[in-house]
């Protein structure tokens, strides 16, 4: 608690913020579930348009990056500063690859005319429009979270390098890690809902 630094308080504050994120995405998932109930066939049909292999690859990338973030905290606490920085760099790399995959995925959909209000979509049935509307909103908002999470991890990496984050003062890394794990959590639900259903 040196210097009025309250690690437990900071962590509770971060968790409180994460609850608002859970409710934000929870609301979107409820919307998805309600429309899935109404248009089960359209959702199943259009879900097949999504590439399961890219989706699974992105899941693996996020899981590995979550592991390396958790491990970076252990490394730091064991005073292995270089290992900690290496693990954070791997996490950042995984996040970047995730976004590159997303870019190609969205790019492909735009190329075949599957975007809101495209000529192909304007005359399409309601179920298809709602499915892809939800797809763009939820994966888009999630992608934004990946960007923010990567910024926080990059900041942590710099601060570890400058020894502003140390084994005795881990709060920023710890809270950035919690945020990154939340991004992973949300994807764990997004992946089966959009890519694997059903």
């Amino acid at each position, binding site marked *: 608690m040196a210097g009025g630094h309250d690690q437990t308080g900071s962590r509770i504050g971060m968790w409180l913020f994460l609850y608002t994120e859970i409710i934000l995405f929870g609301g979107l998932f409820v919307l998805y579930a309600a429309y899935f109930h109404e248009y089960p066939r359209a959702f199943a049909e259009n879900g097949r348009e999504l590439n*399961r292999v890219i989706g699974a690859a992105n899941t693996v990338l996020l899981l590995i990056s979550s592991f390396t973030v958790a491990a970076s905290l252990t490394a730091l606490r064991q005073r292995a500063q270089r290992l900690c920085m290496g693990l954070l760099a791997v996490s950042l790399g995984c996040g970047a690859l995730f976004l590159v995959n997303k870019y190609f995925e969205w790019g492909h959909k735009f190329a075949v005319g599957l975007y809101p209000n495209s000529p192909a979509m304007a005359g399409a049935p309601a179920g298809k429009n709602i499915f892809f509307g939800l797809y763009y909103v939820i994966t888009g908002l999630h992608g934004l979270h990946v960007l923010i999470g990567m910024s926080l991890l990059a900041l942590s990496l710099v601060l570890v390098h400058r020894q502003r984050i140390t084994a005795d003062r881990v709060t920023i890394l710890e809270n950035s890690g919690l945020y990154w794990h939340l991004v*992973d959590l949300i994807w764990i639900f997004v992946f089966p809902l959009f890519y694997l259903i059903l």
Partner: protein
Amino acid sequence: MDSGEQHLSSFLSLALVLAALLALTGLTVAMSYVDLGRFNVPLTLGIAGTKVSLVLLYFMHLRYENRAVVYSFLGTIGFLAIMISFTFWDVAFR
């Protein structure tokens, strides 16, 4: 707990959790190629729930967290459950 110190997870235990998460991902992708009828949705969501629990308990240290965090987290999940169940109460019997 008083010092605010967090539990120190070993690299090995974190790696085991990652292995379990990757195995469950493989399972859920493999299952998506098989039509299990009405068990499709519950099984897929069950696996997702298991994965999420692993991340929360071990990567996010919820298992070793103080009571304020554990109970407030459960409260959030409780509100989420209320939101979902009341919505379906409406949607399913409309």
